[in-house]
C-alpha cells in the first residue's frame, strides 16, 4: 500500500474512532487467568462510554498458543482484539496478522514514551529495536517468587535453618541461597505434614520448563546470540555460565521439588503452594494479587521476591500487548478500544483491579510502590527482564528448547553441555530454513 493511501486509511480510522463508530460487538481474545477477569470488569466502562458490546474469548494457558495461532494462521475472524504473547509479535507482524499501529498512534497522540521501555520493546515492536508498533503494552509481567512468610518467620524453623546452614533464614539474595533454602524445607515436617522446597516450572508441552529454566539461565548471564541480530549462537547459548545455570536448575528440580513434579506449570505451582506443600514457588506476577487475597495462604502468610540474581539481576519476561487483528471487519471499534485503554486513568484502574499496567503514569506515581506488597518487586523485575526469541519461527525455537531442557533436567539424559549444544543445532537448522543463516 502506498504511503499516502496508508495515511488516508489511518486518518479515516482515527477520525471514526474519535467520533465514535456505529455500535459493534467486539471480541477480545486472551488467556483464561486472573487478569482476564479484571479486564472484563474494566471493559464495562468502555461499553458504557462507547456503546459497543464486549465479548471475551479466554483460552486456558496450555492451549492458548495453539488455539490463537491457529486462528490467526487461518485468517479467522473470531478475535477483533488479541492480547497475544510477546513472542508472537514477530509472526504477527511478518505474516500480516496484526494491524500496524504507528499511524493510528500518531493520529491519536498515543506515545510509546508513556509506557515502560522494556514493555514497549518486548510487546509492541517488530523488528526489535525498530519503531514499528503492532501492539500497545497491555499487561506487564515477569516471573517472580513467593514464599510462606509464616514459616520463614517461625522461630523454631529459623533456628533450625541457622543451625543447619549457619545463616539467617530470609528472602534469598542469590539463586544459590534460594536453592539452599529450598533444600532445607525439602521433606521437612511442619505442623505434622511433610513439606517440600519449591514449586518450579517443569512442564513439557507448551513453554513451562523454558520459562522456568531461563530464570536461572538469565541470572547466570545466558545470551541467545553473541551479537544481537547475528544469529551467532556458538559460545553464547552454550557458554560455561549457561551450562552452570542449567546444572543448577536440574539440581533444584532433583533435590528441592515435591515428588512427581515432572510436568508442572502455572496451575500446578499454584496448587502446590495453596495446598501447603511447598515453602516457595515461582510464578508470574499476574497471579500475585490473587495469591495475596487467598484466605489460606495469603495476607500475612505470604511474601514476594524478585527472581534472585546470580551473576546479574534478571527475570524472565511474561506479559502481552494488545493488537488489532488484521482479519477483523470491526477494526475501527477495536482501535477505539485501544485508544480508550491507553488513557492514564484507565491504566490506573487496570492496576487497581489486578491488571499490570505498563504505563509510566501508573508505575511512576508516588503511591504505586505502596499500593500492593509486590508492587515494588514488580518494578525491580521489569528493570531487568529478558525474553525468549520473538522470531516468526518462535514456536519451533521454543519447542526445541522445551525438548532439550526436559530431556536433560527431568529425564536425566545427557549433560547440560550436550543439551545446549543440541539446542544450537536445532536453532541453527530453524534459522537456516528461515533463510537467516
Amino acid at each position, binding site marked *: 500500500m502506498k504511503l499516502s493511501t496508508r495515511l488516508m486509511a489511518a486518518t479515516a480510522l482515527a477520525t471514526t474512532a474519535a467520533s465514535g463508530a456505529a455500535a459493534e460487538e467486539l471480541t477480545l481474545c486472551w488467556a483464561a487467568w486472573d487478569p482476564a477477569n479484571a479486564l472484563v470488569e474494566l471493559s464495562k466502562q468502555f461499553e458504557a462510554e462507547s456503546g459497543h458490546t464486549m465479548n471475551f474469548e479466554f483460552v486456558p494457558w496450555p492451549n492458548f498458543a495453539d488455539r490463537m495461532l491457529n486462528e490467526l494462521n487461518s485468517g479467522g475472524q473470531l478475535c477483533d482484539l488479541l492480547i497475544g504473547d510477546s513472542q508472537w509479535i514477530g509472526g504477527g507482524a511478518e505474516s500480516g496478522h496484526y494491524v500496524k499501529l504507528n499511524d493510528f498512534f500518531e493520529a491519536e497522540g498515543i506515545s510509546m514514551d508513556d509506557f515502560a521501555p522494556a514493555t514497549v520493546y518486548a510487546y509492541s515492536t517488530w523488528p526489535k529495536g525498530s519503531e514499528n508498533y503492532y501492539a500497545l503494552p497491555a499487561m506487564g509481567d515477569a516471573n517472580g517468587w513467593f514464599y510462606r512468610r509464616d514459616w520463614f518467620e517461625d522461630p523454631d524453623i529459623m533456628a533450625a535453618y541457622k543451625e543447619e546452614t549457619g545463616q539467617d533464614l530470609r528472602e534469598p539474595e542469590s539463586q544459590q541461597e534460594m536453592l539452599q533454602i529450598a533444600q532445607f524445607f525439602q521433606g521437612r515436617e511442619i505442623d505434622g505434614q511433610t513439606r517440600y522446597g519449591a514449586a518450579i516450572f517443569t512442564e513439557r508441552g507448551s513453554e513451562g520448563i523454558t520459562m522456568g529454566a531461563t530464570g536461572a539461565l538469565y541470572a547466570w548471564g545466558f545470551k541467545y546470540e553473541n551479537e544481537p541480530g547475528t544469529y551467532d549462537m556458538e559460545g553464547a547459548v552454550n557458554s560455561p555460565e549457561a551450562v552452570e545455570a542449567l546444572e543448577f536448575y536440574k539440581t533444584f528440580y532433583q533435590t528441592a521439588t515435591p515428588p512427581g513434579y515432572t510436568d508442572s506449570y502455572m496451575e500446578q505451582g499454584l496448587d502446590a503452594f495453596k495446598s501447603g506443600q511447598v515453602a516457595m514457588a515461582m510464578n508470574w506476577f499476574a497471579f500475585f494479587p490473587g495469591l495475596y487475597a487467598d484466605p489460606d495462604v495469603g495476607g500475612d502468610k505470604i511474601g514476594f521476591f524478585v527472581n534472585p540474581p546470580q551473576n546479574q539481576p534478571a527475570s524472565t519476561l511474561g506479559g502481552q500487548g494488545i493488537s488489532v487483528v488484521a482479519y477483523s471487519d470491526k477494526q475501527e471499534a477495536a482501535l477505539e478500544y485501544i485508544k480508550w485503554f491507553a488513557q492514564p486513568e484507565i491504566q490506573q484502574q487496570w492496576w487497581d483491579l489486578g491488571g499490570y499496567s505498563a504505563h509510566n503514569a501508573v508505575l511512576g506515581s508516588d503511591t504505586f510502590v505502596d499500593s500492593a506488597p509486590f508492587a515494588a518487586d514488580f518494578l525491580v523485575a521489569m528493570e531487568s527482564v529478558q525474553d525468549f526469541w520473538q522470531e516468526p519461527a518462535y514456536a*519451533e525455537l521454543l519447542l526445541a528448547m522445551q525438548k532439550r531442557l526436559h530431556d536433560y533436567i527431568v529425564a536425566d539424559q545427557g549433560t547440560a553441555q550436550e543439551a545446549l549444544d543440541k539446542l544450537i543445532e536445532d536453532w541453527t537448522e530453524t534459522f537456516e530454513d528461515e533463510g537467516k543463516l
Partner: protein
Amino acid sequence: MTETPIDRAARATPPSVARRVRGLSDRAIAWIFVAPTIFLLLAVNIFPLIWTIRLSFTNFRANRPNREVEWVGLRNYERILTDSDIWLTMQATAHFLIWTIVLQVLIGFTLAYLINKKFKGNDLWTTIIVLPMMLSPAVVGNFWTFLYQPQIGLFNYIVEFFTGIPASSFEMIGSVNLAPWSIVIVDTWMWTPFVMLICLAGLRSIPDYIYEAAEIDRASKWRQFWTITVPMVLPFLMLAVLFRGIENFKMFDLVVQLTGGGPGSVTELTSINLKREAFEKWRTGYASAYAIILFVTVFGLASIYVKALNKVKER
C-alpha cells in the same frame, strides 16, 4: 400378477428420465451408482494423499502461506531418516506397540477362555470386564495420572501393599524407566477387553461336536486346547492383533493426556512427534514426509500381516 418393487420404481420414474436410462448400458448405470462413492474417495482420501506427497518435497509451512515455497527434493526424507531423535521416537513406539499387543493377547485370551466356561454371573462379569473400553481415552488418561500420583495415587499404594516398596519412592510417569511401562499398563487395562471379546467370539464359534469327537478319541484337555482351540481361534486372535496394532501405531490421546510424551521424550510416540512437527512447529513439508514414511511403514507391515492372516484362514 402382484406388482414387485422394481415394477413400482419403473412406473414412478418420469418418462423423460426413463427414456434416457433406457439408452444406457448396464455398465454405465453401474458407474452412475458407484461414481459418488469414487468421487468422495478421491476427494477425501486420494487427493490429500497425493497433495501430501507433493508437499513432502517442499519446505511449505501452513502458518506462512505467503512465503515462497521451495522444492527441496529428498531433503525432508533424508533429515527424518538420519535424525536420531526420530529413531528414539520409533523405538518408543515399538516398545509400546509390542508390549501392549503381547499383554493384551495373553490376558485377553485368558479372560475369554475363562468367561467362555459356563458359570453363574457369567454375563455380569463380561459386562464388568468390558467397561474400561467404553470410556473415553482422554478420561482414562486423565484419571490414571491421579492413580499414578506418587503421593496420593492408588496405584503406588497397591504396589506397596503387594511388594513392600514405599509408595512415595517411585514415580510411574515421572521416571524415565517406568514411564514407558505406565502407558503400556493403561492401554492394556483399557483395551484388553476388546481382545477378549474377539477371542470370545472365536471360542464360541467352535462347534461342541469337535470337542465331543476329541473326547471320544480320548484326547486330553491339553491336547484339545492346542489342536482344536488355538488353531480355530487363531484367525480371530490375528484379527485382534491387527486392529490393536494399527490403533496403537497411531496412539495419541491417551498418551498425551497421561505423560504428554515425557519425561523428556521417552514416551513421545511417532503420532505425538508428528503432531508437534505439523501443528506446533508448522513444518508442513517436513511433517508431510514424516507422514508418508509412517504410512508406507504401516501399509507395508499391514499388507504382510493380512497375507499371513489369509493363509491361516485357508488352513
